[in-house]
């Protein structure tokens, strides 16, 4: 390892990898520090076997017991092999009753590739309207449900650039990452052309979704998924042979041993891994940054055995996933209260950590009726999506502030352990709970339960913009520390009353799709949160260091550079001022490609 690099990038996921890819290929010296392990796909592993497996016990592991001094102390939790051990590094959230719980929600994954190793791969663009919600909600005659104090209009923000600026970078991300999908019927201009690989045949259970959307006049398209279905030249990956071999149901929440899923490791970092000017150090946790005036002078990290080290970068990129990036910046401010702190906090304007966002999300779920039953293990994560609820006319008619994508999940409840451990559970923190309590499901009754549900589950999800609220925020927890003795992230958030109104409407649409598609057995729908589940993030961890044109109203400038520093950029999901009506990763990647171009001209 050298002492100084052109670029030090912290975090190897969606926000960090595109910049490494671009600037290493332009000959800049790049060091990437990643807290998690380097897990190779089978074709790269020296032992011939990948550390990712088609094994349900890896995605949701054995029981562990929370030992921390929090309200849910003593409770079990079940994390994956690339999620942190909660006793070592928890996230804490404030419950509705004011008590503090540790949660596994709010982590993406800690591994080279970050959340893109485990993600479902749903890779949607945001719409032009998603980036102009202030304009839209301040139009004459705008009216919203569930917003008695007229707050949403004032909370809405436009992005500092229009969709047209991002469009070529969406195309670049789609090309380089490797995504299959369909352009027709998407409500976003694909000015740079169609870069998708061909989608695979959909699972026949999704015919119901198609029928339901058709009956409601909702134009649909095959959900863009970051899984290659054929050879992918930019990353040198061989596609599945035949393409159908990629369909296994070990997709969402699983790293892909074959490397068909387009994690940032296989798609963006592998192609540069042998360049002499690129260094990746996995298993290294960055503890803080230190500054000298307006320059980040040193990046401090712990080697895999805990030995402290430091390095400097002429430019430093923070991309640890939103909660952890905010935490890293706040920890750095805590250590240097007169230098780093006033610069990142911009003399105490309270913006760092504020406006934390996830999505408004939820949907509907039911079972197809007997004798129908499908092999749900032959699937990727989703088959059909619709932008119907993105149309301006829909927003105006429904009196909601922003639009949403709706898509079906195909792989949920596809495998036997998932069927049981998700039974009656509401989130990652309540896995197995419903099944455990249903002690009557044994022997013949267990057989009947399986007969009822095996190969029959179908669910539809919406992903909508959450209203940005300043009090939704990430702080450092006052007492709980990680294994190194550093304060952990404290998640404080709730939904706005308009969010609740919006979620009720959109879950109704999801329900209608199922009903019109003829799927009604055990139907349930709603927002996927209750008052007690404020931790829920849908794995979408956004905001907290938003960008904007007004430094008093943002942490980052439009180039994702921290207002108070010359050489500090933050490029994971925390830059988002609004969360978009779609899953965020493709937008994080596209924005990072945009920032990479800016950096290329600066360094």
């Amino acid at each position: 390892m050298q002492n100084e690099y052109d670029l030090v990038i912290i975090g190897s996921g969606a926000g960090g990898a595109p910049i490494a890819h671009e600037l290493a290929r332009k000959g800049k010296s790049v060091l990437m520090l990643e807290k998690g392990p380097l897990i190779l796909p089978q074709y790269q592993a020296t032992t011939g076997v990948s550390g990712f497996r088609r094994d349900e016990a890896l995605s949701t592991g054995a029981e562990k017991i929370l030992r921390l001094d929090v309200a849910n102390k003593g409770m079990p939790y079940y994390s994956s092999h690339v999620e942190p051990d909660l006793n070592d590094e928890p996230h804490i959230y404030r419950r509705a009753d004011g008590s503090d719980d540790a949660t596994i929600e709010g982590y993406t994954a800690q591994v080279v590739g970050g959340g893109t190793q485990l993600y479902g791969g749903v890779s949607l663009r945001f719409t032009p309207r998603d980036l102009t919600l202030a304009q839209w909600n301040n139009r004459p005659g705008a009216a919203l449900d569930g917003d008695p104090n007229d707050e949403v209009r004032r909370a809405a923000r436009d992005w500092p650039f229009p969709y047209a600026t991002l469009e070529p970078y969406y195309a670049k991300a789609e090309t380089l990452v490797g995504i299959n999908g369909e352009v027709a019927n998407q409500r976003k201009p694909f000015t740079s052309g169609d870069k998708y690989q061909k989608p695979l045949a959909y699972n026949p259970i999704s015919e119901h979704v198609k029928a339901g959307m058709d009956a409601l006049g909702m134009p649909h398209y095959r959900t863009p998924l970051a899984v290659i279905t054929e050879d992918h030249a930019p990353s040198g990956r061989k596609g599945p042979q035949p393409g159908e071999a990629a369909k296994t149901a070990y997709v969402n929440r699983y790293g892909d041993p074959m490397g068909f899923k387009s994690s940032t490791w296989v798609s963006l970092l592998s192609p540069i891994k042998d360049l002499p000017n690129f260094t990746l150090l996995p298993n290294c946790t960055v503890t803080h940054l230190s500054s000298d005036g307006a320059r980040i002078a040193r990046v401090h990290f712990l080697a895999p055995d805990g030995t402290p080290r430091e390095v400097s970068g002429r430019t430093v990129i923070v991309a640890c996933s939103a909660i952890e990036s905010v935490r890293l910046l706040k920890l750095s401010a805590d250590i240097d209260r007169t230098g780093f702190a006033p610069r990142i906090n911009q003399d105490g304007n309270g913006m760092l950590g504020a406006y934390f966002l996830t999505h408004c999300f939820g949907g509907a779920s039911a079972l197809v009726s007997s004798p129908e039953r499908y092999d749900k293990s032959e699937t990727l994560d989703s088959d059909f999506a619709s932008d119907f609820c993105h149309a301006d006319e829909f927003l105006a008619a429904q009196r909601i502030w922003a639009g949403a994508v709706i898509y079906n999940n195909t792989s949920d409840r596809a495998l036997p352990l998932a069927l049981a451990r998700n039974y009656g559970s509401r989130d990652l923190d309540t896995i197995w709970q419903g099944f455990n309590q249903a002690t009557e499901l044994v022997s013949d009754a267990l057989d009947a339960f399986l007969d009822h549900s095996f190969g029959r589950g179908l669910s539809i999800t919406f992903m909508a913009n959450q209203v940005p609220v300043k009090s939704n925020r990430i702080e450092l927890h006052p007492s709980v520390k990680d294994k190194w003795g550093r304060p952990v992230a404290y998640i404080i958030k709730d939904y706005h009353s308009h969010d609740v109104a919006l979620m009720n409407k959109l879950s109704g649409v999801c329900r209608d799709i199922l009903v019109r598609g003829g799927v009604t057995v055990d139907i349930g729908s709603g927002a996927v949160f209750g008052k007690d589940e404020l931790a829920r993030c849908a794995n979408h961890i956004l905001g907290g260091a938003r960008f904007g044109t007004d430094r008093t109203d943002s942490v980052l400038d439009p180039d994702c550079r921290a207002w108070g520093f010359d050489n500090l950029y933050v490029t994971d999901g925390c830059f988002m001022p609004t969360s978009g009506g779609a899953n965020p990763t493709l937008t994080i990647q596209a924005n990072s490609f945009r920032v990479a171009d800016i950096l290329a001209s600066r360094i």
Partner: protein
Amino acid sequence: MQTEPLDHTGVLNLAGKYLARRADAPVADYAEPWRFPVVDSHHAGNDPDLNRVTFVWRAGGGDDRRPVAVVGTFDSLWDATPLEPVLFDGQPTLYRAATVLIRKGQAHIYKFLVDGQAMADPINPQRVVLDNGVEWSRLFTEQCAISVSFESWELAILARLTNEILPLTGDDAQRFMDLYYFTADKRARETAFHQAFRLEQPIGAVNFIDKLVAREERHRLGDYKVCLKLIADVLRSRFPGMAPADVSKDAYQDLYQQMAQGKVDGWDTSRYQSPNFFLQLLRRHTYTGAFSHPKYGGNAGAAGWAWLEHRFRGPKDASCFNWERAIEPPIGASADYVA
């Protein structure tokens, strides 16, 4: 013993997460120490019957350069295998490690020799005390059918309890299992894939639990030890003169119902508060054992998955769980995936 080339990043991938912590942190603070020694797949060499087992040592500090070696029953006991420094960025770390190949289906005891001094592995919580009072560390490899947690009377009661939980005692399921194991046995001879199964233990769920509470859910071993004893006591008092594992199916059904209701006549709540809690634990473990990957010691020969496929068919008898195509040979039939 002959060691495999060390996969330095592979060791750091686990050590960085589970072992790295402040120098003053007590050993008891390790997260998931059961992951050590690391038992993993071995693919090179086309012998699917071997596991890679990696022993890991963490030095107290950078100045601790004492040599470390491992001795164990997987090798001739007088032959010590030295652990070598694990490198990060070309430099030695606090970790030392060695990887050896051990057959699947085995259990072994071992010790570290630190500067010639024998001691149990300070990370791995699995220990056994031999008759002579000496403490050793223990490991077992994948698909291990040797019981390591339970005595035979405990296994027998567990077999009855798991039978009550799984829907595999009906005639159709029994016929299917008999046929499946008959053919699996034939296949076993052909592919050198073997997995011990005992038909009195429905598809190895008991064996799975035996392994789970030795390792991943070691914190639950005590629950089993206390509750199996309590159950034996209850059944003995209900059916004097009979072995608890031999009482009727009705007796087990009654017991199950009472445990589910949280009220079992004769259950000493001063020894274990909630029979319902134990039942929930047992049920989760049993289900998991029946349908987890066979390497964990249950779902013997993938019979659990095969049964699901057989039992839950679509219209026109279509398969609705073609599990084999995604799973590695010899358990499954994936054309390209190995594990």
